[in-house]
């Protein structure tokens, strides 16, 4: 980064091919994104595996795992009801994957030379796919359980007929917007947060390069800001995972119980 460093805050979202070769449009292309997905997977499996000692009196690790599953079991049960247990695996998968990806992406692996941290959830191909899966579950459960009666979802109970003509299209549009809002929310949060971190990290470096009381002052200020945003990023990462899981559960509840 010598000379007039031009730091591109978008570079961190670049997907590159690993193991040599140009990036090609092939499903089997192993990219840095795929690598970090596998890292996320490994962390999740290791974490969950460590909590399956099935002790009567749980240790710290087992307690943490039990708190996680208990929390999500609670979310599904409160949102969907007793039937919610069937949908726990997907709600769990979505929550845990988004949470782990967000937090691993927020870790300062960049200080290790050669390591290029990558936040999987900052790719809308990832969050969008997950929201499409959630939406597909909602549609599938809705039509499988209620058949064409599922369309009554768009007509709130007790609506006068005249209003139905007005409300049904609105309900339909709001229903169809769900997968987009669901997928965009975690993507935007991670995208914006990481741009912010990169930009202010850039200020730290540029302030140090400039030198002088002004440069060091700005550098220090920017550093404090980066630390603050990093903490915020951990919070946002958890909130986004929770929101995704909760909304998925609520949407499934619509399909299971209509309303």
């Amino acid at each position, binding site marked *: 980064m010598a000379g007039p460093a031009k730091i591109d805050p978008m570079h961190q979202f670049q*997907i590159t091919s690993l193991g040599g070769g140009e*990036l090609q449009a092939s*499903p089997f292309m192993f990219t840095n994104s795929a690598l970090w997905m596998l890292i996320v997977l490994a962390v999740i499996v290791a974490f969950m595996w460590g909590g399956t000692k099935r002790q009567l009196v749980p240790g710290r690790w087992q307690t943490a795992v039990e708190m996680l599953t208990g929390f999500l079991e609670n979310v599904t049960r409160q949102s969907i009801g007793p039937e919610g247990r069937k949908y726990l695996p997907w709600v769990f*998968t979505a929550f845990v994957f988004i949470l782990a990806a967000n937090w691993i992406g927020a870790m300062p692996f960049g200080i290790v030379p050669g390591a290029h941290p990558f936040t999987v959830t900052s790719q809308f*191909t990832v969050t969008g796919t997950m929201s499409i899966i959630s939406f597909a579950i909602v549609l599938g459960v809705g039509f499988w359980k209620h058949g064409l009666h599922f369309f009554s979802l768009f007509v709130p109970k007790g609506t006068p007929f005249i209003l139905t003509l007005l409300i049904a299209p609105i309900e339909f549009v709001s229903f169809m917007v769900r997968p987009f809002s669901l997928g965009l929310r975690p993507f935007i949060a991670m995208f914006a947060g990481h741009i912010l971190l990169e930009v202010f990290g850039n200020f730290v470096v540029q302030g140090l390069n400039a030198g002088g009381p002004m440069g060091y002052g700005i550098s220090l200020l920017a550093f404090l800001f980066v630390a603050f945003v990093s903490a915020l990023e951990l919070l946002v990462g958890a909130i986004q995972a929770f929101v995704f899981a909760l909304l998925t559960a609520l949407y499934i509840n619509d399909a299971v119980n209509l309303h």
Partner: protein
Amino acid sequence: MPQLAQLALVYQSQWFWLLIVLGVIYFFVGRGIVPKVEETVDQRDAQIAADLAAAEHLRAEAATAEEAWRATINEAHAEAQAVTAKAKEEAAKDADKRVAAADKRLAKKLDEASAALDEARRSALTEVEAMAADATREIVAKLTGSKVDDAAARTAVAEALSRA
């Protein structure tokens, strides 16, 4: 924005790897590990509930046992009190009886003693009378020379004594 610029190039591999990763999490973790963890939690909850119920049961049992023990103790107390009361009463009655018997004996002794005393006094008195009659006779004989017969002397002495 690389996400858009690279979309055509990367979407296939992104989906491919994402679906693999999500599939592993869903089937291995979500359907494999999570139910086990929940089962453990449920087992623990069941065990705690059972233990609590057993403890509650034992507590109730202990309460009934204590109640029974208290009742027994109370009964024993009452019995003991009755026994002591009865013993006291009997002892008092016995003592009364013995005191009465002793009283009777003493009274009898007193009677006898006073009877003996009376007898002694009477015999003494008779002796005194006899001696007085003798003395009277002798005095009369010495003074007058006449002989007073014994019966008259006695009568006179008795009269004088009764007057005195």
